[in-house]
């Protein structure tokens, strides 16, 4: 048996031998744990009781122990030895990820991937800071967020919100006025049948969750807009990835202020998200909760993210 405690727990041969030390006949017990083949066996021969006579030890090792141990170790190690993989195991990113996931406009996955025997551990260089992803599932989520950031930055570059922000103050004022003068109708309009708006208003007052938007933001439709944009981008609106949180927040605030819907905003750029090439773009809870989008055990969006063919066969 190999390296490791399990082997030691189950020392498989204990040999009692008789040897001569200083001309006197003595009995010894020899145990051996094969490590990796014959060479390993030489270093793990133990004897009980410990010989105090160095000369005697040499006598015995030469005359008895080594031949016995070698033969037993060889036979037994062949019979029960397991060659365990020793974590961390190093893999190549291009062997475990589809090509599209290795590099993007704003990220690059490190070539070396560490594996603990079950889960892959990735490192990414990004335009923001280095990232780690503990599992392929988390990497998928991070890459989708990074891809979303590319789109969001493109929207920013193309001044999608410039015009809307000019009229933004008026838009916000109208929204608040309507909320005050026609609270029920306005609320109904904003909820659009999801029932989440009221819930979020309540949560906004009592929640300690840092990702819970405050009541004013919720009342102004920021909460809904953020989720709508997140849905269009295919990311979790409550992600903890800071660049995505910040950019998504900016866009949602600008969209609410300017009265821009995600569709209109995205139409300004030539991207699959904007042109409706993303699958299932008319399904799902743009304004509702996300529990059924979460992948069990990961708390992440439960949806194939890459590659574009809609399968995750390329991921391991």
């Amino acid at each position, binding site marked *: 048996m*190999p*390296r*490791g405690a*399990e082997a030691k727990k189950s020392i498989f041969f204990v040999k009692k031998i008789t040897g001569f030390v200083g001309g006197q006949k003595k009995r010894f017990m020899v145990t051996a744990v094969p490590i990796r083949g014959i060479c390993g066996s030489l270093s793990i021969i133990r004897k009980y009781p410990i010989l105090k006579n160095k000369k005697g030890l040499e006598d015995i090792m030469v005359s008895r122990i080594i031949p016995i141990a070698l033969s037993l170790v060889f036979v037994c190690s062949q019979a029960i030895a*397991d*060659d*365990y*993989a*020793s*974590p961390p*195991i190093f*893999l190549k990113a291009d062997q*475990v990820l589809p090509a599209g996931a290795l590099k993007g406009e704003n990220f690059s996955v490190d070539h070396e991937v560490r*594996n*603990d*025997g*079950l*889960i*892959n551990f990735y490192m990414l260089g990004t335009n923001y800071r280095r990232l780690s992803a503990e*599992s*392929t*599932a988390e990497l998928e989520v991070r890459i989708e967020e990074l891809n979303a950031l590319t789109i969001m930055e493109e929207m920013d570059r193309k001044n999608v919100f410039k015009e809307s922000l000019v009229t933004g103050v008026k838009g916000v004022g109208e929204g608040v006025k309507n909320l005050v003068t026609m609270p029920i109708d306005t609320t109904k309009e904003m909820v659009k049948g999801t029932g989440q708006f009221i819930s979020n208003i309540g949560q906004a007052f009592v929640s300690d969750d840092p990702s819970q938007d405050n009541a004013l933001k919720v009342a102004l439709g920021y909460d809904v807009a953020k989720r709508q944009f997140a849905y269009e981008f295919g990311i979790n609106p409550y992600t903890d990835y800071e660049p995505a949180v910040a950019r998504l927040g900016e866009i949602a605030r600008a969209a609410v202020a300017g009265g821009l819907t995600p569709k209109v905003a995205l139409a300004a750029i030539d991207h699959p998200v904007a042109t409706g090439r993303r699958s299932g773009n008319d399904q799902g809870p743009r304004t509702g909760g996300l529990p059924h989008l979460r*992948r*069990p*055990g*990961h708390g992440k969006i*439960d*949806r*194939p993210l890459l590659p574009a063919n809609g*399968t*995750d*066969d390329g*991921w*391991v």
Partner: protein
Amino acid sequence: MMGGYNRTIQPAKAILETAGVLNLQTGDGGRVILAQVDYVFWIEKLAVKVSNVEKALALEQSVKGKELWVTGRVDSEAKTKFEGLGWKIVENAGSRLLDK
């Protein structure tokens, strides 16, 4: 994954715990372990776990068939070990069991 298996592969009879490992019992008496893992290697911890599961299953004489479904991949050596113990391995199960 269990839900996906139950919906898309075959209805599960029960969710059981065997030597600390959750698994599905199928209608025909089989056992299915579902694991969301990336790349399985035959590491010592896994070998011990599998050994414990094997011992527990051996006490139950009604077990007919053992399957391991993983979202990722299984190293060839690990696959050999599992198959040697009578396990059927299903890799890249995520596309079949998740997102349904």
